[in-house]
């Protein structure tokens, strides 16, 4: 598996640290009434078989946080964006 970092170019997988599902969103409120949202955010995962957006840290490279779109069955990488761009896009959507 090789990942095309927007800053560093195509680099081998051992330079990266994976941090899981990028579709989960931290609830905005600390109100105990939002506990179900927190439960969902901390514990529950869609765990899709196929296309998957995940947070990846280029820990042995530029140390940028990225969002990689990858197939969980074939490990094929479809695209890489910075986590910042991913978040911006999500806010727009």
């Amino acid at each position, binding site marked *: 598996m090789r990942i095309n970092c927007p800053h560093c170019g195509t680099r081998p997988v051992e330079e990266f640290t994976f941090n899981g*599902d990028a579709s989960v969103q931290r609830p905005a409120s600390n109100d105990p009434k939002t506990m179900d949202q927190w*439960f969902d955010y901390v*514990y*529950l*995962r*869609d*765990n899709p*078989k196929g296309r998957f957006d995940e947070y990846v840290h280029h820990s042995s490279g530029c140390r940028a946080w990225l969002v990689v779109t990858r197939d*969980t*069955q074939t490990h094929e990488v479809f695209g890489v964006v910075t986590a910042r761009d991913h978040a911006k896009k999500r806010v727009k959507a």
Partner: protein
Amino acid sequence: MKYSVFSLLKSTLSGHKKWPPAWRDPQPKKDYDVIIIGGGGHGLATAYYLAKVHGISNVAVLEKSWLGSGNVGRNTTIIRSNYMLPGNNPFYEWSMKLWEGLEQDFNFNAMVSQRGVLNLCHSDPQRDAFARRGNAMRIDGVDAELLDTEAVRDMYPFLDFNNARFPIKGGILQRRGGTVRHDAVAWGYARGADSRGVDIIQNCEVTGIKTVKGKVAGVQTNRGFIGCKKLGLAAAGNSSEVAAMAGLKLPIESHVLQAFVSEGLKPYIDGVVTFGAGHFYVSQSDKGGLVFGGDIDGYNSYARRGNLPMVEHVIEAGVAMIPGLARVRVLRSWGGVMDMSMDGSPIIDKTSIDGLYLNAGWCYGGFKATPASGWCFAHTIANNEPHKLNAAYRLDRFRRGYMIDEKGQGATPNLH
């Protein structure tokens, strides 16, 4: 047919040409009392104990591929009950007790070998932690011995005792731990369940779960609809996919774990040894190959193969523990898909849907649990409530804050 010295002699006289198949290959019936999804170790054990202990034999086990093609045939065959927390250890000790009587119970040679599991420690705090865990084990009636460096040296003189960074300070030994021939576990349970009337249906993939008014009615499969009163999910690795068919979202991620076997060697390692400074565990099979493994690759995956950096990482840990391994050639490596739960502990429970039961989240410790998992899941299905041994493995424990987190690391899907 009961396997015995007499059946062996009889079949010898007929040139071993008249052994009957170990289980039938039935067509699915229109409906069953209980359907189990997943013909791996846990699913087959569940069917076996449903028939044997609870007298429920109108049962089908649906397997999408061939029997035992999943993780029951992909693990490193280790059994142990050296856990610490109260929710875990009585369960795993019950599993060990079932292993000890398993071959006589299901009349099949599963090569249960209690050759001892030794965890190495490399610092004083780690030894203290091992002493604590050993004491917790002994409170639950499990055997545990704390060994000093010399006692470890007597057992395994070829370990790297004076490693500059990770010197071996001792270890904790569970003599009753060991290894089991993994495929034979699937075959033995399949044969035992089949002879009690359970239908084991291979190449039958479930594509949908039908519920009527919040109650399970049956499953859609590639061989048509099959009705049932109760449905048990034992599809670890693919639990999220199967549970989603019933509209459930689980606290689980699927990850790939690799395992390895070396070329055949003369007898070298007679027990199971685990490295305490990295993640590495090794034993030697009866054919002579060293069977070993390490950590999961670390990214979500449903592929039954991993990447080379983890191969290198595992072998580095192995060579740090046993320098002589550097001269051993690896014969094969393979991968299996793990149900990584958010606290490193499994789930055996009812669900919010009437008649739907869940057995999932085994991380990479499911093999040793096979007998107790099947036994407890059968109890849960038959009585519609958990046994006290799996009472802590509730699905709602994450919401209620009763995680069983052996490592004390918090919610992360990389524990075991």
